[in-house]
């Protein structure tokens, strides 16, 4: 008996095409990740924009996990707070999961769960005998737990009219090197599909129809994207200490390096990777390597940045390049390490004691993460200081639909490094002199075979010649030059992407992963309330004139970010002086990714609408 015969069904609604969200409620360690990705890929391959977000606990196996896929014909791929379709696999959360559904939603559940459909008459129910289906289709009992998840993919393929072949294609791609695994999963998906076809009557409105909005796009997570960016930026040294969510970045980079960066001629590595004993060591190694001339980076999350602070300060004062990928998560160290946050902006922009300032880059999708990884190395080497690439858990660990990456067009910028020939030509070398007026001095690398090449590196206690000095004016001169250097950054970091809406009195400023929800909220405001908004997407700190202009030209500017304190708002407030009164806060801080409705509601209430 299928649930389609249950009494009191909601009326059949008008079809909803390519616009829904699916949540799979399961436990971590149960292997549902692959199934969920295949489902998402199937939709993607049908040309429908989509995204997938995994909400998982700080634990390895056995605790609740929710995977959400959103498909949206208009390209809205931010998290959507309301769910349309729920797949219940976890007995521990089943009641809460069902309770949280909106009226009219769809609920697929494992028949083994103690679900009474009567508790929510406003839902469309599908009961699925997972154990039976999997038992039939998967003779190897050991594999059953894993492939169970493919059953619901098959069922959903049927219900949502997703082409089963796309699921097969996705599986084959995914298991390109393990054809047997592909087969087992294909069989399971087919079994789910067949069972559904034979037993279910579709009563819900959600459907996928082919369109062509994913042409040329890829699906990738942000940490892999940044890792690839580094590999194509010629990174030579990676040091790291495992921490969620940045481990993924390092592990992806290691895989890519091993695959693409072994010297053909000798079979040897053109890179070195060190798993350090902690973050103090990993940043120390980066500074040592950069000082010696390597392109070095590390990746970490907030707790790691805290530990690195002293060294980051040294990088600023002693002028040593470093690239740090900060994949932000909710703090503190024993906080919600598997939840997302844009929470390290204050910390990173000024890390360390004293007068230190550091530039930050904010990619908002994988393709930008790829590009900015490269830019970060160029900037770090040119400016001889730490450059942060600020990802977050949402971008880093979730699967994003993205433009394919563009091969870099510019050669690597290795910065102002003087070679033996340069030294011969110049006859003079003063490590900390501002020769070019941009605040950026020249450096030499250890091993440079010229009598005037060497200098001694230390913090701020030196004069322009890098000789030890405690003289007040030497210190002040140097500090003023460093301030000048930081000013120079404004013109060299990626500028904002600005979209002026004619007649808009309201401006939005967002960055990083708040972008997608912001775009969607703008449409909501326009379409639902006739409220027009302009939009500036920040891509870096420090800011440039375009940011100031944007704020000038609007009555209110909402700074949308995912932290409690409005950390970016504060940086902007300090930038624009009196106009800071225009800046309003849209702060989302719950550990889950921001959604458009939250922005829309917050803005409307602040606008008194």
């Amino acid at each position: 008996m299928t649930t389609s015969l249950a009494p009191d069904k909601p009326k059949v609604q008008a079809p909803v095409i390519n616009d829904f969200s699916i949540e799979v409620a399961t436990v971590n360690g149960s292997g549902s990740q692959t199934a969920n990705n295949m489902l998402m890929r199937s939709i993607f391959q049908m040309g429908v924009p989509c995204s997938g977000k995994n909400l998982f606990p700080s634990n390895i196996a056995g605790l609740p996990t929710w995977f959400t896929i959103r498909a949206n014909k208009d390209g809205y791929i931010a998290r959507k707070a309301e769910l349309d379709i729920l797949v219940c696999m976890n007995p521990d959360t089943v009641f809460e999961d069902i309770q949280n559904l909106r009226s009219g939603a769809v609920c697929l559940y494992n028949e083994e769960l103690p679900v009474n459909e009567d508790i929510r008459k406003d839902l469309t129910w599908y009961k699925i005998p997972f154990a039976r289906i999997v038992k039939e289709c998967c003779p190897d009992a050991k594999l059953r737990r894993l492939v169970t998840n493919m059953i619901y993919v098959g069922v959903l393929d049927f219900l949502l009219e997703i082409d089963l072949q796309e699921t097969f294609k996705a599986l084959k791609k995914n298991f390109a090197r393990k054809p047997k695994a592909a087969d087992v999963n294909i069989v399971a998906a087919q079994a789910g599909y067949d069972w559904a076809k034979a037993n279910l009557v579709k009563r819900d409105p959600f459907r996928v129809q082919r369109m062509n909005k994913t042409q040329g796009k890829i699906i990738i997570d942000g940490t892999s994207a940044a890792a690839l960016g580094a590999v194509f930026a010629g990174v030579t040294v990676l040091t790291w200490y495992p921490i969620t969510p940045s481990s993924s970045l390092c592990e992806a980079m290691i895989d890519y390096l091993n695959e693409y960066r072994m010297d053909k001629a000798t079979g040897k590595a053109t890179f070195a990777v060190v798993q350090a004993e902690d973050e103090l060591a990993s940043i120390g190694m980066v500074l040592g390597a950069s000082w010696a001339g390597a392109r070095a980076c590390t990746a970490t999350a907030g707790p790691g940045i805290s530990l690195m602070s002293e060294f980051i300060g040294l990088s600023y004062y002693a002028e040593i390049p470093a690239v740090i990928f900060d994949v932000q998560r909710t703090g503190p160290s024993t906080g919600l390490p598997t939840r997302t946050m844009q929470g390290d902006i204050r910390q990173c922009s000024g890390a360390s004691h004293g007068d230190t300032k550091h530039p930050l880059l904010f990619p908002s999708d994988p393709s930008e993460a790829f590009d900015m990884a490269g830019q970060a190395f160029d900037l770090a080497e040119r400016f001889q200081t730490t450059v942060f690439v600020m990802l977050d858990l949402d971008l880093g660990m979730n699967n994003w639909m993205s433009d394919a990456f563009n091969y870099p067009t510019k050669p690597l910028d290795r910065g102002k490094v003087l070679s033996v020939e340069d030294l011969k030509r110049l006859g003079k070398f003063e490590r900390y002199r501002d020769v070019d007026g941009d605040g950026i001095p020249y450096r030499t690398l250890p091993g440079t075979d010229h009598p005037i090449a060497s200098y001694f590196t230390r913090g701020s206690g030196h004069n322009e010649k890098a000789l030890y000095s405690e003289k007040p004016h030497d210190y002040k001169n140097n500090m003023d030059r460093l301030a000048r250097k930081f000013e120079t950054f404004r013109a060299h970091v990626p500028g904002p992407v600005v979209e002026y809406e004619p007649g808009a009195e309201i401006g939005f400023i967002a960055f990083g992963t708040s972008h997608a929800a912001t775009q969607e909220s703008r449409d909501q405001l326009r379409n639902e309330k006739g409220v027009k908004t302009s939009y500036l997407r920040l891509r870096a700190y420090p800011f440039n004139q375009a940011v100031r202009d944007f704020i000038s030209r609007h009555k209110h500017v909402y700074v949308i970010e995912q932290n409690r304190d409005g950390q970016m708002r504060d940086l902007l407030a300090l930038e624009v002086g009196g106009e800071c009164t225009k800046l309003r806060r849209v702060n989302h801080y719950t550990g889950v990714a921001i959604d458009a409705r939250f922005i829309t509601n917050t803005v409307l209430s602040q606008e008194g609408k």
Partner: protein
Amino acid sequence: MAPEIATPQVPAEQRKQNRLGLILPDYQGSASTLCAGCGHDSITNQIIRAYFEMGIPPHMVAKMSGIGCSSKTPAYFVNKGHGFNAVHGRMPAIATGAVLGNKHLYTIGVSGDGDTASIGMGQFVHLLHRNVPMIYIMENNGVYGLTKGQFSATADLGSKSKWGKDNPAEPIDCCAMAVELGCAFVARSFSGDTKQMLAIFKAALAHKGTAFIDIVSPCITFNNHEGSTKSYKWAKDHEEQIHEIGFVPFFEQVEAEVKPGETREVQFQDGSRVRFKAVGKDYDPTNKEQALSELFKTQKERSFLTGILYLNPKQKDFCTELDTVDPPLATLPESLTRPPKEVLEEVMERLR
């Protein structure tokens, strides 16, 4: 006992040339700003001499340090090398990074007992664990000199502070730790024993892997009084040389004769050899357990052993492990470090 003073006293008239045609002053540094009589300056002088006698190209020297009086010394030798005075206790990471960037550098780190055995303990252990090819000198005075004489973790139980207080804890013996951890070159010396230091430094330059050298180096200002167990007098009275060391660099093999009594010989990967002449008992520097038990014994007797305590030149070093291309990673051309366009397209294709 008056120790030498750094740099300034290196006799300028010494015009002997080394195998590169360079003279001793080519290996000097800036004038020391340490207290006159500081043990650290004596060590500096022998470092200079070792680089000179080994004929190391000065521009290939990378001099790393943490923070402390000892950590200032890289400014006082081999001015033609690049130096890096980093943050307190983190020299190992900085030095490891430099080695990653350019494995052809002759990397030397100078640290203090505070810099190493207190704040730097974690990095110290992991540097040894990795066997990063470099020389690591710990200038050990039992106190934090630069912050004015507080006891460090290497201070002996009962050693008296300048202000008359007894140190309440047993010392951490970094040599014993290094031996236990499998470091393949562990030596101890005394800043007053210039001959021994020189031999050890030269051997360390021939060694591939971390050469850890703990040198008792009295702090004349804060730990050279009666009752201190790191004073010149105490060290002189309690040093126990475990052997005499003869070092034969690979480029001088022909001239070197075995001296009478030199019984043990260990050969380094570059062909250089170190020869040991027993002093008192027979000591096998390739025996880890003997090293530890002798160290424990002298700890109990409140004396200190000097010499090359443990040596295993065959151990795999970190760079061998990493197996990178021969040129320094620092200067690899873009053609080697940026994969071609096709590679990116291949990756994209997989993700479409």
